[in-house]
């Protein structure tokens, strides 16, 4: 069996850099700015540029890794199922909060982006900014935006959310750990969930729940609505 050297190089480099980035993240005390995904993406961009590769070629060579996003997204059903038990008692208001939050997070970003930048690809990609990356990539690609750009916006949203939200919640006097986590997970997905787990286990579990719920709710509701949010330009 003969496989192109480039393909083997691209996959080994991606795995190697990711594992190194994980080590750096651990040693640096898990700072959100040194998240392994951020470090890996920028290091690989640097390596590709230095080697003179083009992205479409790298994308084809790493197709195997990208493919696993499919089953991994389906697998999110397991933690979602396990976390749903948390909200039995408060199910209706928490679900209403999730629908409201998910729609506001997506619609406001698309409308503002359409008004401020008039860049259609960017505005479409903004629709997935608050949802977990695997779902955002698929949803935005289907919509005609750019999955890669969506991945970047999701990371940016996570970083900004973890910086802004603690202050906002203090101002709003939201101290209940469960509700605090629920807001963090909805607006700042995985980054928010990691921050919530530092506060308490309850906070983290509610963040994980709202992160997965928001991904599902957004993927079902937002695609048919997006055209109505982009009427300005």
């Amino acid at each position: 069996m003969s496989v192109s050297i480039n393909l083997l190089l691209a996959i080994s480099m991606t795995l190697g850099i990711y594992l190194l980035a994980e080590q750096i993240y651990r040693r640096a005390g898990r700072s959100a700015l040194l998240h392994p995904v951020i470090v890996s993406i920028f290091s690989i961009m640097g390596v590709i540029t230095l080697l003179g590769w083009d992205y479409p070629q790298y994308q084809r060579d790493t197709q195997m890794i990208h493919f696993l996003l499919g089953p991994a997204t389906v697998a999110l059903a397991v933690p979602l199922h396990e976390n749903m038990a948390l909200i039995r008692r408060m199910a209706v208001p928490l679900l209403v909060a999730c629908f409201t939050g998910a729609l506001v997070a997506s619609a406001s970003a698309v409308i503002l982006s359409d008004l401020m930048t008039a860049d259609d690809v960017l505005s479409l990609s903004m629709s997935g900014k608050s949802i977990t990356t695997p779902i955002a990539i698929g949803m935005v690609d289907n919509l005609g935006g750019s999955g890669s750009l969506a991945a970047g916006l999701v990371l940016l949203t996570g970083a900004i959310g973890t910086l802004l939200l603690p202050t906002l919640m203090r101002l709003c006097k939201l101290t209940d750990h469960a509700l605090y986590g629920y807001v963090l997970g909805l607006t700042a997905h995985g980054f928010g969930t990691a921050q919530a787990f530092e506060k308490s286990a309850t906070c983290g579990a509610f963040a994980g729940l709202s992160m997965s719920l928001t991904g599902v709710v957004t993927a079902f509701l937002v695609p048919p609505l997006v055209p109505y949010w982009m009427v300005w330009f």
Partner: protein
Amino acid sequence: MVLGFLVLLVYWLAGEALSQWIGWPIPGNVVGLVLLWITLTLLKKVPQPVAEASKMLIRYLTLLFVPAGVGLIEHWDRLMANGHWMLLIIAISTVLAALAMIATFKLFRVNAS
């Protein structure tokens, strides 16, 4: 492990088929997620093979979207031209979404814990 992986693939396949059949622009893997979630709710437990396969994939979930993330390199001009707007839009939208949720909690007088 392989059985669990097969189950995830079959649910993805079913989700993809269903979403193309209905013609609703939802990614097939999210439809697969919902189908599996419904199944788990009906079963009231997570079968061992599915639990193992999903644990493994979710453990390395962040690695899986690195190749897509590297594609940002193709949007360099866009980032340079509109980067400041992106930061502002994301900040405003994040605050609005959080306020909308907090307002909902107040409206329903939620006290979860």
